[in-house]
């Protein structure tokens, strides 16, 4: 007993109890539900086991795979662009000596917006009737309003713009923190030896920044599902499912169509997707950190 009180477990106990009750047990229920034809309207169906039927149906479900593919594509494009823009912004701010702190603070502006506000703000900007975007274009002679949130491709681009606006600063801030921590000696030595700025960037700055890239990626992969709020606000997955992501599809299936069993099967696939993303970047982070400490 005394050993227990002095050890780490007594300190971790409250955390473990809460996470077990609020996350782990519900996930087990969720797993069970995904093997039943449970519908909210028919409570008895919770106890009927149907094996992998929900998953089998999902495999043949065209709408599901479209949403799945769109989600993966959306994340791949958004995360890469955020990284590139964030790196550019960090390098830019790093060059500025006067007013750097102020710039850094301004850079954090989008981080204060909840996803639902980001969605609202861009829904307003891309509104075809009174939005900032169309009003602006009208000044340049584009009289015919562009249906930003109605056209399939444009709606996806608009949502992407909102997502990138809200999350690029996470990358910019963390990469800037990395840049500021780079030791000056190796860079100066390389310059004396005749390296040009691109060679310095590629061989010294970038390897040093890699752990910070992966920290940012890991943090981002923890909350990629925030895109649900943005999409729900801007288009609700419409028009005609053209902006449907995995998460909006889950919410529609579970709460609107009341097909809880099916929705839980989908949500397990989304959970694995998120965990895979996080694991991948965390693994990369550990790897980059080790490489840095060997050199």
């Amino acid at each position, binding site marked *: 007993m005394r050993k227990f009180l002095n050890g780490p477990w007594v300190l971790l106990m409250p955390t473990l109890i809460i996470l077990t009750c609020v*996350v782990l047990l519900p996930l087990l229920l969720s797993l069970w539900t995904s093997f039943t034809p449970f519908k909210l309207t028919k409570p008895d169906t919770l106890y009927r086991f149907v094996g992998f039927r929900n998953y089998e149906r999902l495999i043949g479900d065209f709408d599901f795979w479209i949403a799945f593919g769109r989600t993966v594509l959306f994340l791949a494009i958004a995360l890469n662009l955020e990284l590139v823009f964030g790196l550019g912004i960090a390098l830019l701010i790093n060059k500025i000596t006067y007013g750097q702190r102020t710039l850094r603070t301004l850079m954090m502006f989008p981080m204060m917006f909840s996803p639902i506000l980001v969605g*609202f*703000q861009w829904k*307003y900007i891309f509104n075809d009737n009174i939005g900032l975007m169309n009003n602006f274009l009208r000044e340049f002679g584009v009289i015919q309003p562009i249906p930003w949130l109605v056209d399939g491709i444009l709606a996806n681009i608009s949502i992407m713009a909102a997502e990138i606006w809200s999350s690029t600063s996470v990358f910019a801030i963390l990469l800037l923190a990395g840049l500021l921590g780079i030791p000056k000696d190796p860079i100066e030595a390389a310059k004396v030896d005749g390296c040009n700025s691109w060679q310095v960037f590629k061989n010294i700055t970038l390897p040093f920044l890699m752990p910070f890239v992966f920290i940012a990626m890991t943090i981002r992969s923890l909350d990629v599902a925030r895109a649900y709020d943005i999409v729900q606000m801007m288009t609700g997955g419409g028009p005609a499912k053209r902006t449907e992501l995995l998460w909006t599809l889950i919410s529609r299936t579970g709460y609107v169509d009341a097909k809880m069993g099916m929705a839980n099967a989908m949500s397990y696939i989304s959970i694995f997707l998120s965990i895979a993303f996080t694991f991948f970047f965390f693994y990369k982070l550990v790897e980059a950190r080790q490489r840095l400490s060997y050199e």
Partner: protein
Amino acid sequence: MNKRQINNILIWFSAIILIILIMTPGLWVVLTAFRPQVDVMAKPAVWIPRNLNLIQFETMLFGGSEGSMGRSPIPVLSYLRNSLIISFTSTFIAVLVGTIGGYGFARHNFKHKNKYFLLIMLTRTIPGISLSLPIFIIFSKIGLIDTHIGIILVFVALNIPFTIWLTDGFFRQIPRAMSEVAMTDGCTKLQAFWHIELPLSRSGIASAGIFAFLISWNEYALVSNLARSTDSKTLTVGLMDFTAQFTINWPGMCALAVFIIIPALILTFMVQKHLVTGLTFGGVKG
């Protein structure tokens, strides 16, 4: 003009464009909140505001005055009360539990420590909407749907992992020797924690708390499904309700949006420095 000066001008030019891109969307919403409906709907657009007023805020908070668009259709005050109760309570509990956990991770070595840490972080990875499904089923069975307690419970679980991550980093920055010296002088472990380690990591814990508050304040996916009425709906859900109205009152919605952003704005400025150090510390030093 030499090459260096041109370079400087280019850098400042791109910095200014960057700031415009970052600030415009938010400021446009703020501006709209103070503008009359006619100006907002005008075509061609009125770029320079002709007159600004507070009608939307009056309507929202006091149920409307003469000449405004009538009573606010959204019970903002109830939503505000719910947001405050839920965010404050869940933050308090999450910080309490998370700090104790973070201390456990920072000061003890045990088998598979990194695996447990990763496992706790992974609970944060689960998309809100996926987690909401089973919680919805459980809560409707035990009567926690549409209650403060239910939502607080979920938010506590949501905030613990990040609080542990941040506080673990801050505790590790404090040299172990300090509490060891205190303990050889006769302090118990608890006294050493209370008098030495806790005060030293005060600012770190405060920023973890503010961060947790912001997560709760901004959360939408879970609350929107676990809250059903004015008993527990928060401001973010209220904003969504507003958009679902038949005739959209843009200035009114913008006013509500401003209302949601102000606390977030103030709090984020307070913690910005600690947040960056806290997040990168754990990552780089290993």
